[in-house]
């Protein structure tokens, strides 16, 4: 019978694979990243070229990677955990998978509201979440801020994606901080009543909906507009040309921004290399790479913005402590559940 042999062969090859994968090179640093491969690997390769330190990358969903980190405990191969959104960073910090960042150099580069509690993580880039409006149909002087989205003047005229999305959860978490739960819940109800279509699709879809005339106002992250403006697809570029950014709440707390950030794992075995990579990610060239490749705002003060960011104009950012977004996240989701925001 041939089958048992086959089984043996298979189990042996599986074991061999297991061994070969577990032998780590001395000069390596291992990164778990919730940023997609295409949006991080080029920088990591530049780092490897400069320093000769090999970077091994595992991408995936932020929550799933965190679950993996937690379960691996002190045996984790990961030295750095990079994830997007303050909510996810906060959750990782609470789970105790990070160790404090101690390098003064690194800490001083980045404004302190972009540090995690006890410096457990640090922001790498910022993404703004303003309101987009149809250039031909909306007079921007009639707009003031996020509160407009719930105003009955925009009935059946607002597009936003599902509340499953962490960007919306963080926006709501920020509003809870500024307005309190009660007022924010009222706002969410008003927003749901104003929706022009069910909250489906991604951010880009909301911008396209404005361009297609489905609604006059939409909420989305700015880098999606950047991707559309730079798209190879002429239809996308045309859609992008029909919408403009309105920076909300400039008279009060400022436009909501979110952060992508990174922390050194508690049980990192290559701490030196990890610190070098961390410092590199905050260097001007890496910071500018984010800004040009993904149209994100640099976290480091004084780094020059890309042309596209400059075109969109300067604005007042909401400078609340990023960890607040994480602390309010569960409350935000429950509030959205109650408001019927799907």
């Amino acid at each position, binding site marked *: *019978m041939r*089958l048992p042999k086959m*089984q043996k062969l*298979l189990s042996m*090859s*599986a*074991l061999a*694979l*297991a061994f070969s*994968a*577990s032998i780590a090179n001395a000069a390596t640093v*291992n990164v778990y990243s919730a940023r*997609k*491969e*295409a*949006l991080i690997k080029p920088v990591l390769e530049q780092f490897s070229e400069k320093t000769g330190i090999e970077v*091994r*990358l*595992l*991408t*995936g*969903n932020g*929550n*799933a*990677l965190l*679950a*993996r980190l937690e*379960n*691996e*405990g002190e*045996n*984790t*191969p990961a030295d750095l955990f990079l994830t997007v959104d303050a909510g996810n960073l906060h959750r990782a910090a609470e789970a105790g998978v990070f160790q404090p960042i101690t390098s003064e150099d690194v800490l001083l580069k980045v404004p302190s509201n972009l540090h995690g509690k006890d410096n457990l993580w640090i922001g790498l880039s910022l993404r703004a979440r303003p309101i987009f409006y149809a250039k031909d149909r909306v007079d921007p002087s009639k707009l003031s801020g996020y509160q407009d989205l719930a105003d009955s003047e925009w009935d059946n005229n607002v597009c936003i994606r*599902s*509340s*499953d999305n*962490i960007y919306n959860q963080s926006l709501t978490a920020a509003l809870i901080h500024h307005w309190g739960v009660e007022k924010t819940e009222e706002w969410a109800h008003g927003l749901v009543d104003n929706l022009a*279509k*069910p909250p*489906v*699709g991604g951010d880009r*879809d909301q911008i*396209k*909906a404005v*361009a*297609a*005339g*489905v609604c006059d106002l939409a909420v989305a992250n700015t880098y*999606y507009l950047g*991707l559309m403006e730079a798209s*190879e*697809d002429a*239809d996308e570029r045309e859609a992008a040309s029909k919408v403009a950014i309105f920076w909300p709440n400039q008279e009060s707390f400022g436009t909501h921004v979110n952060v992508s950030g990174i922390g050194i794992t508690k049980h990192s075995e290559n701490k030196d290399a990890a610190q070098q990579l961390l410092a590199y990610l905050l260097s001007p060239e890496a910071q500018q790479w984010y800004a040009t490749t993904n149209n994100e705002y640099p976290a480091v003060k004084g780094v020059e913005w890309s042309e596209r960011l400059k075109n969109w104009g300067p604005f007042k950012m909401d400078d609340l402590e990023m960890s607040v977004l994480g602390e309010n*996240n*569960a409350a935000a*989701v*429950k509030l959205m*559940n*109650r408001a019927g925001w*799907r």
Partner: protein
Amino acid sequence: MLQKWRQLSLVASALVLGLPLFVIVAALLSLVFGGDFATISHLWATVIPEYIRHSVLLMIGVAIGVVTLGVATAWLTTCCRFPGQRLLSWALLLPLAMPAYITAYTYTGMLDYSGLVQTSLRDLFGWNYGDYWFPQIRSLGGAIAVLSLVLFPYVYLITRATFLQQSATTIEAGRSLGLSPWQCFWRIALPLARPAIVTGATLALMETLADYGTVQYFGVTTFTTGIFRTWYGLGDLNGALQLAGLLLAAVIALILIERWSRKQARYDQRNPRPATPFQLTGAKAWLASLACWLPLLLGFILPALQLAGWSIERWQVWTQPDFWQLAWNSFGLAFTASLLVVAIALWLAYGRRQLPTKWVRTSVAFAGLGYAIPGLVIAVGLLVLLSSVDQVIIAASQSWFGWDPGLLLSGTLFALLFAYTVRFLSVALQTVQAGLAEIRPSMDEAARIHGYRPFQVLRSIHLPLLRPSVLTAIILVGVDVLKELPATLVLRPFDFNTLAVRAYEMAGDERLADAGPPALMMVLVGLIPVILLSRAMLKSQQHALKEQNFVPVTA
């Protein structure tokens, strides 16, 4: 004595395979006995009724969709003759090679308000959005349509095998009593094929329940999206596992109902000789042709063309070596996993055949439950288990040899292969068991009487008879692994990506055109096994089609 050990080893290995499910059951029990109802009661008051409503509607819709499409195409291609019938009889399997979420991406690309169809309509007639009615593709109806189009081949495959087997004498008796072809179908063939239809529909519904990619992309809140929302949004993994436990309970109920419905009647027919097919001509032939081409067109050809269009837009990708590395990873993984899963399924199925005790039967059934559980939930269950085993191994190795071997199980391909086994064992088990059921014990005995030794019995009787079903199992599992995304995403080692992962990362970032090449490649790699399967099916049409007649995991 030997038997006892064998039984023990069967039960033990089935339980090991079911271990990740225990993590879910434990979470559910902790809910029932621990009394921490905070998350669940909030969800119950706000969203769970909607999740249940959507899940139930989705399942009813998909059930109607796959049964209509699957049975109609199976009947037409087996019992009627019309132009294109031979080609269609294998081509109708092609939608299996399309991951449901990829089909969802392509239809959104075409039919959304900013897609080709609606923009052309607006340009052509000078309309604005809102001037005209157009179905919303991102909706419950859209999800039902996409899942039906992708999953109907399960019903087609299994029902077709049954139609081919249906004894000609039964149908001919009906005809001689004055039934028209239509009446033959409604009053004889369809009722006789009921068990096969139910089995195919059950497989499709289990996939539907576990589906996350499609419904999430379409913004339909189902039980499965609820599990992830609870985990990602509320940060409550335990609450998410509790919801998964409720889902598991629903699945067990579904399986029990299916089994119960099957027990009501016996469907044995003597003397299986294929019936003479009905020769269709004129308008009837055209209609039959249309009825078969339409699901193929919508379920495979159109989405594949859209992917091809995106791939041409991004032609540079095809020249990159790391893209071919992805294809190689995907193929290697699917190949290894399918051999492994089928080998285990064979071992369990043989054990169950020779030692059909209550313990063995129940534990084998338990091992097959993973099919309806979302891959990510299985992955998390597995992660919890494997990392604790790893911890023990590392501690032992350090105290004995002073050497840290690292994460041998949870950080390597071992974890991935384990997850695939848990998730897809059911598919292999059902196929192999169906094949085994055809080999009656009397055949073994007859051979032994003629002086065959056990090994000879295996070689000259079992192997030839089992070959088609083993092949089918390998291919079905291979295609499933190729398409698998969530477990792969969580459990894979460093710097190891697959086509599914790449396609998902691009599409998740709303870069649909960039998702084109990996998605098309995935379909192409999946196409090879599907075509192999169809050819094997055609070859063995005359005598050995019974192997695809799935039977329940336990009788």
